[in-house]
């Protein structure tokens, strides 16, 4: 498998664009219930904090701050684009699907219908050392979502 299949153009672009980055710069939206989660990858020191805000059963906002490799930063950016506007159930479904693909060691193909741009991370599943990078923000979002709903 070539490096370009791992680092697809869409990943390199999102790693730069970092949609949703800037959690600390703005308060959670009024009228929404918010939860926040900090996740750390102790092997490389990558870390991310994700805040998920829910209003009317939908994700009204996802914001994050993080420091890490292009895979982890792009993954958070793609997640932001996907999550905002989704229902709570839709976000849970897409997180489960993403996890299944990433942990499959290349055996489960990504469905672009479900995962959208996140399907570009399919190649990461063949690099065991990088799966955690791609999953970091999604694990944080799942935890933050749970807290938002419990709040």
């Amino acid at each position: 498998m070539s490096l370009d299949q791992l680092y697809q153009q869409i990943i390199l672009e999102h790693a730069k664009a970092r949609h949703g980055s800037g959690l600390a710069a703005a308060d959670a939206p009024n009228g929404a219930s918010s939860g926040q989660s900090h996740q750390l990858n102790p092997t490389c020191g990558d870390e991310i904090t994700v805040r998920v805000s829910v209003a009317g059963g939908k994700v009204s906002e996802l914001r994050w701050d993080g420091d890490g490799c292009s895979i982890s930063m792009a993954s958070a950016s793609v997640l932001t684009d996907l999550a905002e506007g989704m229902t709570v159930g839709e976000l849970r479904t897409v997180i489960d699907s993403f996890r299944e693909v990433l942990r499959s060691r290349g055996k489960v193909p990504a469905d672009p219908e479900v995962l959208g741009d996140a399907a570009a991370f399919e190649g990461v599943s063949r690099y065991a050392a990088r799966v955690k990078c791609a999953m970091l923000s999604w694990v944080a979002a799942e935890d933050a979502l749970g807290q938002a709903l419990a709040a």
Partner: protein
Amino acid sequence: MVATPAHLRRSAAVLGNEEVLRIRNDFPILQQHVNGRPLVYLDSGATSQNPLSVLEAEQEFYEQRNSAVHRGAHHLAVEATEAFENARETVADFVGAEWDELIWTSNATEGLNLLTYSFLNASLPGAGPEAARFALAPGDEIVVTEMEHHANLIPWQELAARTGAVVKFIPIDDAGALDLAAAAGLVGPRTRVLAFTHASNVLGTINPVAALVALARSAGALVVLDACQSAPHLPLDVKALDVDFAVFSGHKMLAPTGIGALYGRSELLNAMPPFLTGGSMITTVTMERAGFLPSPQRFEAGTQRISQAVALAAAVNYLSEIGMDRIHAWEAELGQRLVQGLGSIPGIRVLGPAAGQERIGLAAFDVAGVHAHDVGQFLDSRGIAVRVGHHCAQPLHRRLGLTATTRASTYLYNTTDDVDAFLNAVADVRAYFQA
């Protein structure tokens, strides 16, 4: 620079590419291709590769001599004990120690934990007057440096937390050198232990051992040397360095994993309470209590890592055969080539001493706009193995304003072609990631 011990002194010419290419033939693992390219292994600072003579020594032990040591009267038990104790003598001699001053451990981390847990045992009520010199009390100070590997930091943090002692840090300057003036102010009457690395696994700095030992002696503190990055790469003589304890790991010096050693001055080891207790380390045992053997068995409870010890001895024989002074000189040259080459690539920040300044054969660096993980992945696609991350030195990275770096580390089997292949690949990294 400490004088080279007699057994390492050689008159042969300097090590060069031609000889290194012959040395490489002894390392089967280096013959392979990775991602369609010849493997360029630049991660020996993390773990080194094994020459055939080491692999064969371990196999030969299991084929010919395998048995428990220090027990049994049968032929194999005698053979195994002899191999085990000869290995100890070989490795002790390699670092300038006496045989009874070298204790087998799994690795340097275990060696440091052995020390800190023994010090903790010495700090408990009823430890006795002999143990008092190792006991820590609230307000006592343990001094380490900002450049320590977690292995030479966390055991001391834990010991301090349990005894009420305080851990203090000798700062580094921006070029990765210890601030000796600050050290002189930090090491004082409350200092009980001064623990520091001989050579930094991130910066490549070789620390001024003599100056630090002098500070510790004037304060009456024990000196603990982390020799993980020096024992494999430079002539090491623990007596000439006058340290009280030293640790190193076999897998960083051509031996298998699972074996390392703790050196300690004999009189200290025989006064220090043991850490692990049980079989093989006792004199008389009653229902109530036990007497302990002198060092080294005092610290070697249970069945030991026999074949690994034999393999480590084969590894140091291999290193001695080539000559530690020649290995050191070759790696210093590779280290300079790394630093100079990296320095000429735009957007690269090399940590540690500047080009031309002394360093061991490694270089850690930051690539502007590209995370270390991505750098490592890119290099891997060219068959180049490097380490990425914090290299078990988070406080050091934080001090330098970084979270992760990429590190290339050489050994006696690396050529200048290896370094050049690496440098050529690094030069392409930023363009690939559009940084």
